[in-house]
């Protein structure tokens, strides 16, 4: 089972910083990154967001590095396609593959570099939100943003069940594994549907249990939200404003920079 980033978010050093402020910082950085027309600003965002997450929020560096490999394969493959599809400028190199020749030009290289930079800037900003802001804090913000109550309630219940079902899935997966359920492809193909099916049946039972549990406490269509918090400190608000302004300025000033 993969790491659930939310578990880290509950222990990070920025846990008690105001939720909205963290969302504005992460979300603002994402937007500045994709609006930037040059790769410098997204790269600046990637590096600074990674630094904030690792040094200020104290997320283990090695873990952060492994996280970055998740977008890597997608980004590199897709940027590779862009490199050979788009054009403009002079030809950088040509690669004969089979009957066709793949050509990379300065224009396409610039475009690929920009997309790569944006992806990393975006992912680092997303990691910042994911690793510093527990989902439970975001629910209150969702409600404050006037998202429909049914939607937020459903999201909260799904949150609860995800952790419950992950526990069940891991237990069943382990039980299968010790009986050689994942030794080889054929065994896996037999085991996985059993796992999924058993999990579905169990999930359904849990859902029915929950109906009982909610009724026992007089469920009347309402879910509580914990809306405490002192609001952001002026200093941190100013810090976020300065950071976003700086990132924006860099994006404007370096928008025309083309590395190739």
């Amino acid at each position, binding site marked *: 089972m993969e790491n659930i980033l939310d578990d880290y978010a509950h222990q990070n050093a920025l846990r008690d910083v105001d939720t909205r402020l963290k969302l504005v910082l992460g979300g603002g950085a994402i937007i500045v990154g994709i609006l930037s027309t040059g790769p410098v600003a997204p790269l600046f965002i990637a590096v600074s967001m990674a630094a904030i997450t690792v040094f200020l929020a104290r997320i283990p560096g090695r873990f952060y590095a492994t996280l970055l490999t998740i977008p890597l394969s997608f980004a590199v493959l897709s940027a590779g396609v862009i490199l050979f599809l788009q054009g403009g400028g002079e030809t950088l190199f040509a690669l004969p593959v089979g009957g066709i020749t793949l050509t990379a030009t300065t224009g396409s290289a610039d475009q690929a570099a920009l997309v790569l930079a944006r992806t990393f800037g975006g992912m680092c900003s997303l990691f910042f939100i994911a690793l510093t802001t527990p*989902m439970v804090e975001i629910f209150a913000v969702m409600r404050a943003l006037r998202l429909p109550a049914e939607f937020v309630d459903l999201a909260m219940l799904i949150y*609860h069940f995800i952790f*419950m079902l992950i526990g069940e899935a891991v237990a069943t997966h382990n039980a299968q594994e010790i009986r050689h359920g994942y030794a080889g492809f054929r065994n896996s193909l037999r085991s996985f549907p059993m796992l999924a099916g058993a999990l579905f049946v169990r999930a359904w039972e849990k859902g029915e249990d*929950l109906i009982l549990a*909610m009724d*026992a*406490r*007089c469920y009347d269509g309402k*879910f509580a939200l*914990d809306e405490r918090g002192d609001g952001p400190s002026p200093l941190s608000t100013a810090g976020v404003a300065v950071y976003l302004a700086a990132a924006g300025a860099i994006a404007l000033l370096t928008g025309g920079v083309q590395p190739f």
Partner: protein
Amino acid sequence: MREAIEFQDVHFAYPNRPESLRGIDVAVREGSKVALVGPNGAGKTTLLLMCNGMLRPTRGAVRVGGVPVHYDARSLREVRRKVGLVFQNSDAQLFAPTVWQDVAFGPLNLGMEKDEIKEAVDRALHQVGMNGYERRPPHHLSGGEKKRVAIAGVLAMEPEVLVFDEPTSALDPATAEEVMDLLDELNHEGRTVLLSTHDVELAYRWADEVVLMESGTVLRHGSPETIFSDTALLHQARLKPPAVMDLYRELSDRGLFNGEKPPRSALAFTDLVESLAGGRRYQDRCGTISIWDAA
């Protein structure tokens, strides 16, 4: 004294199954500590689910505070507010993202005001000793902590009667003891406490009254001493007597005790054995003295 909960000839069958309750007549006095004891499958959980109208008897009636339970939405709300039910599996009971939200669920749905809710939640968390955990998600808590939060969620609705299904199941001994101490405290504050268990040691130490169940019937309702000294009855319910009771009975059978009240704890038992041995020692000394006299 008033009866907090009364079952009158209660029958129940899940659809397409044989009856799981076959005529239960039990009354739980207000302010008492009652343990439903029996093996798994005896119908304990089914009976508990009737205390607040979660299940409806197929025959017979349930009374809460002297009033028969009605099964319309409005009456059910009333009953569920009066009778708080804590399930065996805390994971099934804690469904909100944070401890605070979970405990606030009942009060909010009862239509309390924001300030009232805050107060009720704080008080409930304080009662179970879980202040400071408000913003934690339940899935990061230990088994004992989850149980406490589950209890707080019920306490926040200020019930008069508390019902627990196997409150110590899957807890280790120290944690189980803490939970039982908490139940004692809640009872001291005036609440009736009814629980189910198959742990005879726990029931023997803790309960004022024991209801022994087996295959959907009540075998006996009485004091822990009466019930747990009846080996044949316990055997019928596939249970063994508590350890001290077992030793007491063995020693009684061998004629070493007679007529003493069975001890309820290791300490009481020790006192009993000591008095037995001490008594002998005293006689012994008498004998010795008489020898000296005779010489």
